[in-house]
């Protein structure tokens, strides 16, 4: 049985690789971020100044934190009615029909399109549309980025929401129907309250996706190192500033970008953990 022990050892070793890898990621990010935090302290988080001019370098991530949070939340707001309709379509109105299968398949396809294709499509197809509305001269900015981001996260919100809605017990719905409630009333009084935390979790996890999205946002947000002043103002997210500036960075700037990555890592991890907790409590 010595052979079995070796097999078990190899399996355990693989699992250890995952643990070490994750530990290494956190250590490396933290290590890389130390110079920036040493130089600027907490100011790195709260300052909006991002000035790479040699000699008077000053880095603060607040503009990017704000950009990330604003675009992601806006994307979430746009995503909610879409994902919610699709979930009700799939798991309530047309449950078990071909139509539901087709819609589910198409929504899933949205998740398969690469981020850079979304960005490119947004740039050449959506941006002119937004310019033509007259709301923005350039067509870049928070709103354009959020709109594309919303389309990208719809499949994540829909897949969990529709699963949870499908799990609402038939007996509860029938009880409400037997008292004369219409379908809409059953949805609002029975289905949604029963599936509430699951639906919430699905949107939290979709938000987690939005926070870390890089390419599409980088191509559409306008890349200005400022706190966005309005819906059509340009900005930058944590991910997009890393994508744009990491290549030519070194020294303190590199450290500031890694520190931004560390913050992004922390925020996404917290949001994802929150979603997982909500979903576990539901199940």
């Amino acid at each position, binding site marked *: 049985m010595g052979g079995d022990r070796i097999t078990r050892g190899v399996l355990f070793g693989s699992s250890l690789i995952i643990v070490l890898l994750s530990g290494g990621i956190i250590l490396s990010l933290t290590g890389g971020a130390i110079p920036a935090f040493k130089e600027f302290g907490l100011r790195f988080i709260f300052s909006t100044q991002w000035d790479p001019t040699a000699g008077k370098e000053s880095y603060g991530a607040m503009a990017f934190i704000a950009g990330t949070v604003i675009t992601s939340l806006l994307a979430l707001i746009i995503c909610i009615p879409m994902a919610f309709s699709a979930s009700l379509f799939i798991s309530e109105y047309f449950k078990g029909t071909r139509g539901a299968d087709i819609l589910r398949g198409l929504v899933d396809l949205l998740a398969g399109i690469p981020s850079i294709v979304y960005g490119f499509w947004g740039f050449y197809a959506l941006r002119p549309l937004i310019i033509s509305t007259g709301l923005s001269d350039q067509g870049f900015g928070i709103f354009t980025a959020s709109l594309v981001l919303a389309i990208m996260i719809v499949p994540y919100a829909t897949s969990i929401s529709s699963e949870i809605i499908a799990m609402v017990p038939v007996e509860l719905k029938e009880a*409400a129907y037997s*008292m004369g409630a219409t379908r809409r009333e059953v949805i609002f*009084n029975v289905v949604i*309250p029963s599936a509430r935390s699951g639906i919430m979790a699905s949107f939290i996890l979709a938000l987690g996706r939005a926070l870390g999205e890089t390419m599409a946002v980088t191509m559409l947000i306008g890349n200005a190192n400022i706190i966005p002043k309005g819906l059509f103002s340009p900005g930058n997210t944590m991910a997009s500033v890393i994508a744009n500036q990491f290549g030519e960075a070194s020294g303190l700037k590199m450290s500031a970008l890694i520190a931004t990555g560390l913050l992004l890592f922390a925020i996404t991890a917290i949001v994802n953990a929150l979603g997982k907790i909500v979903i576990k409590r539901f199940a």
Partner: protein
Amino acid sequence: MTDNPILEIDNLSVAYETGRSAVKNVSASIVRNAITAIMGPSGCGKSTLLRAVNRMHELYPSIKTTGDIRLDGESIFSMPVIELRRRIGMVFQRPNPFPNMTIYENVVAGYTLNDIRLKKTQRDDIVEKALHSVTLWDEVKDSLFRKGTFLSGGQQQRLCIARAIAFNPEILLLDEPTSALDPVATAKVEDLLGELKKEYTLLLVTHNMSQAARISDDSMFMYLGELVESGKTETLFTNPHDQRTEAYLTGKFG
């Protein structure tokens, strides 16, 4: 059976898919202020028949119905389904209080669900009266604003009956209401049904013959979708006309 039935079922057939009929050409009359039991082995179509009475099967578009059911002489298929379900309440096999609502909210759920706004005093009245009717008041009066999930199965089922009668229906449909309950809770619910028939007409589906014998006034025996025999419970049990009824009652199948 009598000269003034509240509900008349007229040549009713219900098919799940084409060709597979769960209820075949059933005609029957349901007597006012009495308990009518529908018996038969599982799969005989008794639940399907019951659910047709408040058009629950319309939730599933593949189910096709022919024939007619008349409530006080008026066809149920020509009245708005909302009105029909308001006049005919339903209690299900497994207790199903709404887990997101308190006990109080559960009792008035019929009103909330139907967008009927009531004054607080009216609501309080309805809740107290309904819970008294199902003899649950004393047990829950101190926890009206807690979620109903901590109640025992029997209490939950009585809460569901309260929810149905709070809406003041004319007929109460009961789909094997005690099959998920223990004997003590079952006895309580049976006593309760005996009381309720003074105010309501009860149509009860049961696979439990002794329950039908104990509490019903009239009985219907169904087999393979057909209504084999119906009449006074006493007559049906002591002197069945049909061989199949006799075989079922003497425990030969089912």
